[in-house]
């Protein structure tokens, strides 16, 4: 059986990709995708820890399902925001969306 560490490395790698995507991409949709990656990395961790430590309970899977649900809602809200911003400003470049600048 594949050891737990591998899964953890995979999840860490996926999370790093997600962070990098969220921080460095200029397209708002790409940023959103980076966030999705980070969430899924977490999901991998949850499922992996459930499988290797606590088979008797459904906690890990349940959390993963919750995360997926929340991620779907989040993507939904995020995309709606991006569409609205695009309608207003004709851009989805996050570098230009700095109206909150102090």
């Amino acid at each position, binding site marked *: 059986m594949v050891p737990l560490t591998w899964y953890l490395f995979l999840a860490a790698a996926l999370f790093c990709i997600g*962070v990098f995507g*969220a*921080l*460095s991409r200029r397209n708002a949709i790409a*940023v959103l995708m980076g966030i999705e990656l980070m969430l899924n990395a977490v999901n991998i961790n949850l499922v992996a820890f459930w499988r290797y430590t606590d088979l008797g309970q459904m906690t890990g899977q349940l959390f993963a399902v919750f995360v997926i649900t929340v991620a779907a809602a989040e993507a939904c809200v995020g995309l709606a925001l991006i569409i609205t911003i695009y309608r207003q400003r004709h851009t989805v470049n*996050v*570098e230009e*969306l*700095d*109206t*909150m*600048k*102090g």
Partner: protein
Amino acid sequence: MSNPIFNLAVLLPLLPFLAFVLILLWTGRNKRLSAGLAVGSIGLSWILGWAIAIAAFRVEGFGANPFLAFRNWLPTGPTWQAFGIVIDPLTAVMLIMVPFVCFLIFVYSVGYMGIGKPEGQHDVRGWPAEPGHVDPLVSRFFAYVALFATGMLGLILADNLILLFIFWEIMGLCSYLLIGFWFARKYPDPKQITPKEAGLKAFMTTRIGDTIMLAGILLLWIQTNSLSFSEIFKPQTLASLATTTANLPILGPTPWATLIAILIFWGAIGKSAQFPLHVWLPDAMEGPTPVSALIHAATMVSAGVYLIIRTYPLMQAVPHGPALQFISFIGAFTALFAATIAFTQNDIKKVLAYSTISQLGYMFAALGIGAYIAATLHLLTHAFFKALLFLGSGSVIHGMEHGHHAVGHSAHGDTEAAGHDEVSVSPARFDPQDMRNMGGLFKRMPRTAWTFIIGGLALSGFPIVTAGFWSKDEILADAFVNGHTLVFVTLAVAALLTAFYTARQIVMTFFGRPRTEAAEHASERDSIFAWMTIPLMVLGVFAVVAGWVAIPEDFPILGALSSNPFHHFIGGLAEALEIEANPLPFRLSPLVVSLIVALGGLLLGWLVYRGYAGKGAPAEGSPLEIPDPMARPLGRAYTVLQRKYYFDELYHAVFVKGALRLSNWLFRVDDLWVIDPIVDGVGRLGRWFSEISRRFDTAIVDGAVNGIAAITNWMGGIVRGIQTGRVQNYLLVGLVTVSVLLGAFLLLPK
């Protein structure tokens, strides 16, 4: 012992005061009601006053046990100033005279001021009304005289000097207000004094005396710690005042009693118009005639004499001391001095004014030589006959005005009703007070004439019948018996002159033939004369009988008929106060002198002025141009007398002008060297301070406020850099922070 009616004495001054307040505040518009209030209030005071006085006469040994009532009023250090009344024989006899004379004069005023007559169309406020019209300000007149009655009644009841002084000043105020009652009146001759100026003159002149008197009162209070008469007149107090001395700059050590007595006497000099403060009284005749009778003949001016009688124990604390000598000197000198002026005056009221000054001088001379009772008697009798004379002169003046008015209407139309403003007064205005315009009024105004003659005879001391004889004779006798020869001679000469000018006045006014048309048409038939002549008749009776209460017991024949109740009554008080007042032994020589001067003066006056009066009106020209029979024999001296020894001019040059110059000079000094530099200095200092303040403001206050704002702004500038508005930056910060914390958590030792 003490009759309960004495407790009502406090109402005596309060009733007229109530009338004063009511008239002033509410009834001023209703002239009849105002007059009625004043007359009614004084009428009640009169009845009450006589009831009190009669109750007092019935008390045995009243002089030793006077009625006293007081309440503590002002705390002054360890003691109290009391507010109280005293009724002793002196107050009692004054209560016989004062409210009664006041009442009669109030009644007379009702007629004199024309109550019940229609309002004149052209009458000006503050100007005498046309004959037959009511005075426009008559309510005010009655308010003032009511207040005056308050002052006089309060004065005679006051039991201490400070209360006396308060009422004294109330009278001074009323005198001022009433002299200037016709305040708008102006004369074509700018040198003739107007009522307004006369009031001011009277007020200022008496103020000199009052100030000195107040100084005396204060010194007395410092020395004795009390101003109540009963306290001051205790023998030990008087003895200590007489023995302790004050060191005066020039005079050296002087007993306090002498110093205080002389200072207080100065108040009397001012109030009673004695030399050298006599100048105000003749000019006070500018007031309405009832005022002259009430204030400037019967009551207020005699308040000075009353003051000296009241404080007599203090005056004689040093027996035969300089205080008494000073009083007798001033009195005798004034008596003669004023009498010499009186017989050259042509204004009927001025003659009486100088006569009043002279008679008051008589009283002071009497007090100075110790004739305590005689002075009191003369004070009373003089009040009656001088009030009578003044009221009579007022009646004459009204009669003349009516005559003039009648002539004016029939002959050349209504000349004077055109209005009273300055312009319309013709230069040759008819003077109804000038005796040279009169003559022959006896037939036209018989009631006035009879009563005036009775008053005149009383004034000149017509023997046996009149009151003036008994009082004057007693003064002369006292001076003679006690060896005051100089005073005796002076007073005798003054009495001669008095009789002379009285005869002159009567002859010029009532006898002979009329010298003007106004005198020709003068009458006392108008309805107002009913009000005016009744008081004259009553006073006429009193001018005769008032002396009968004081006929000396050893006077030939008449003495046996009377027991001299006045002497016994006042003598009781004198005894209680340790004043020497024994009945005089009868001497023939002063009586003879008294008879000679009275009868001789009258006869002389009649002889000299008979011819003058008999001539009647001159064929052409004014009667004012007929020379006085005395003018030729006296020559230049006559002019000096007629100009009143130039005292008015002298005082004007020295005091009035001097005061003006001094104030002008002081004004300049003040302006240039004191006030201006101070004001400028204050201004500069203020500017200097504000400059400093301004700098402080700009630098420190403004700097602090702006500085705080600048610092905040600067720090905000730093912090705002963090706020990029880019979500990725925030995320990065979050990541780094979490990483650092995680790293720290993992790496740092537990």
